């Protein structure tokens, strides 16, 4: 009897179970991406005083399907000088980690593909692996824009991994668990956004950076590197990138909803049936996703050096401070309102600090700006070449100006 049950079609039962779950994830990802692209296009179109897709299907509902069909039937182009293996493997290297991160995502109590006791750790680890695919795509494409985009992506995603993880660590410390289910159940009355407002905002910021969304869409910047690592991709490979992009947006949104917004808990600890709980998680996740779309429609893009200094000079110290203070509160058993006080005060100061820094930013001296140019020109002279006449003239004027400031006229 037991033998019969555990072997179906000659395979052990858990194999079939695993296959069913994998198929479920793939279906979920595809449907999600179809839905999300439609919603994004509609939402952004409304913000931009446009209508968005209206032609295919009722209210343009079939537009994503039409897009998907177009992408599937498109010719699979590959640059002649591309590094063939790297180029072809890159979409998978991005796709598979995202796919695997889906495994540990819970939507309602006991509702998920797998409930892992290290769920948060697993998801964050998996989503950060996809950076390898970005670099592969950038390197393999044999395109300078792609290379530049990949270099930016590597710098950005590695930097923002730290504040992202640390902001989640703050929550994990309070909950004393890395199991997403337990973290959600701990927020029966008070979601962690109340205790950790700073952590939540850092999470959302880092999430935008990890997703390469505006204002951190530097690796794929349309007006600078024209799509970055994806510039040479087309057809089905490009659609895999697209699939990954929206899937990871969904992953981060559900993760944020689960660990900061209380997941499937209704406010004030009311208990409802499974479907309403599921709906509640999705509503919270949708709020996060919609805010991502909203920010995308209204924000300009940061520059790479501003992005890096934002992460290393502001977000990482703040998250460390928060982790440290959480530790103090938890070790000495102070009331949890202290968590809120510290986090809130730090958030207000951070916001004020950003505003002041931007408004009072002093002019970057021209000498400093020309420094790297001078170094480059010297290196070129060493190699027996000379920069263009105008650059030489600029450097000469720079020297004269420096001489003039060194010896002020009487």
């Amino acid at each position, binding site marked *: 009897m037991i033998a019969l049950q555990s072997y179906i079609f000659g395979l052990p039962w858990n194999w079939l179970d695993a296959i069913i779950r994998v198929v479920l994830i793939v279906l979920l990802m595809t449907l999600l991406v179809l839905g999300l692209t439609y919603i994004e296009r509609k939402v*952004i179109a409304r*913000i*931009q*005083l*446009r209508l968005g897709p209206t032609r295919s299907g009722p209210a343009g509902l079939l537009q994503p399907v039409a897009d998907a069909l177009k992408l599937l039937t498109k010719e699979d182009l590959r640059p002649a000088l591309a590094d063939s293996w790297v180029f072809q493997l890159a979409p998978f290297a991005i796709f598979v980690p995202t796919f695997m991160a889906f495994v540990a995502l819970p939507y309602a109590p006991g509702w998920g593909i797998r409930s892992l006791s290290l769920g948060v750790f697993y998801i964050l680890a998996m989503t950060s692996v996809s950076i390898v695919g970005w670099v592969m795509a950038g390197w393999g494409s044999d395109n*300078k*824009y792609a290379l*530049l985009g990949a270099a*930016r992506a590597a710098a950005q995603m590695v930097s923002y991994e730290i504040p992202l993880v640390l902001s989640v660590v703050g929550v994990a410390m309070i909950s004393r668990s890395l199991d997403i289910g337990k973290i959600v159940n701990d927020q029966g009355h008070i979601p962690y956004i109340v205790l950790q407002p700073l952590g939540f905002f850092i999470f959302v910021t880092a999430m935008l950076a990890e997703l390469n969304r*505006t*204002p951190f*869409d*530097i690796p794929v*910047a*349309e*007006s*600078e590197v*024209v799509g970055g690592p994806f510039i040479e991709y087309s057809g089905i490979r490009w659609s895999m990138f697209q699939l990954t992009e929206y899937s990871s947006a969904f992953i981060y949104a559900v993760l944020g909803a689960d660990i900061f917004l209380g997941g499937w808990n209704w406010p004030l600890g009311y208990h409802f049936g499974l479907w309403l709980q599921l709906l509640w998680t999705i509503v919270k996740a949708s709020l996060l996703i919609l805010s991502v779309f909203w920010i*995308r*429609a*209204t*924000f*300009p*893009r*940061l*520059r*790479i*050096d*501003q992005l890096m200094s934002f992460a290393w000079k502001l977000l990482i110290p703040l998250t460390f401070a928060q982790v440290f203070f959480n530790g103090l509160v938890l070790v000495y058993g102070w009331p949890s309102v202290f968590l809120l006080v510290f986090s809130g005060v730090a958030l207000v100061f951070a916001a004020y600090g*950003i*505003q002041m820094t*931007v*408004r009072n*930013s*002093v*002019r*970057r001296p*021209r000498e400093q*700006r*020309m420094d*790297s*140019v001078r*170094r*480059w*020109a010297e*290196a*070129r002279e060493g*190699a027996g070449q000379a*920069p*263009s006449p*105008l*650059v030489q003239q*600029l450097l000469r004027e720079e020297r004269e100006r420096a001489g003039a400031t060194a010896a002020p006229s009487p």
Partner: protein
Amino acid sequence: MQQLEYETVDLNINMGPQHPSTHGVFRMVLTVDGEVIVDVDPVIGYMHRGGEKLLETLDYRQGIGIMDRTDYLGNFNGEQVYCMAAEQLYGFEVPDRAEYLRVICTELNRVASHMMFMGAYGTDAGVFGTTFTYGFIERERIQRVFERLTGERMMYNYFRVGGVAWEPYDGFERDIRDVIPLLRQGIADFNGLLTTNEVFLARTRNIGAITAERAIDYGITGPMLRASGVKYDVRKDEPYSIYDRFDFDIPTGTTGDCYDRYLVRLEEIVQSLRIVEQALDQLPATGPLMPERYPRMLRLPVGEVYSRIEGPRGEYGIYLVSKGGNKPYRCKIRPPSFCNLSALREMTVGEYVADAVIILGSVDIVLCEVDR
């Protein structure tokens, strides 16, 4: 162990002519050291259509159509300067009503051009299309009026040597008076969307700054020069047409960076709307649109003339040489954005790759006018 010798080569990035943010078919060959631009080689000429040569083969009436096609965002301004050059050479007295109509058209065209700049500049800075649609919707309001006035959306061909072609339609004034408050609202929208946005500030302030002396050396004119702090505007310094009858200010910046250029253009929209309102108030209800004694075939006397106006991008000049006859012997256009573009290398060297896009956007080039 074998010592490997590596040679460091410069990474040249070819930006354009097919690039979303080079505003047409402009090409920049950037030499980058990491993310820092150490040299930039601007390449122009992809849009060259021999416009100046073409003008020599067309008579003065037909030449106006070519002027439409040089600066396709400030068409009326192009028509105006060409007509003015021919009028100066012949000695036409342009009727008052025609002058007012010209001022209304050119100023509204300046507003439309600057609105377009606002939209495109936001896109350069990385806003996903929102500023673009906002800019376009404001431009569209003006375009609608122009379309009803001239029958065309871009290539108006409405001015004539000596005046304007036909009477404006009934309700022309009312339409413009309706549009002006909406445009003011549009400026408020841009203030909310870009002017006070921290990311926009961080991206545009202290970027691509050029000092007043260097700007004058390069022959930069228009909003770029005024952003550097030089209060120079042909409409004030050498009032042509009837600009001495209006009360308006010349906005200037202080540092000459990209943000100042943006602010100067935003303020210029306000001033242009002021001029339009005054012109509408003073517009004579009736009157001729062309000089009374007008030859059947316009032949200019032998001579040469340089006339200039303040276009949306700067001083738009025409050097017209006539050897008699109904066609110009030589018609040299001084295109403002071509001259402004000459400072690109000085502004860009030493900045980051991402800033090259912002700086190029702040020049507000129109490639048809650069290449002619």
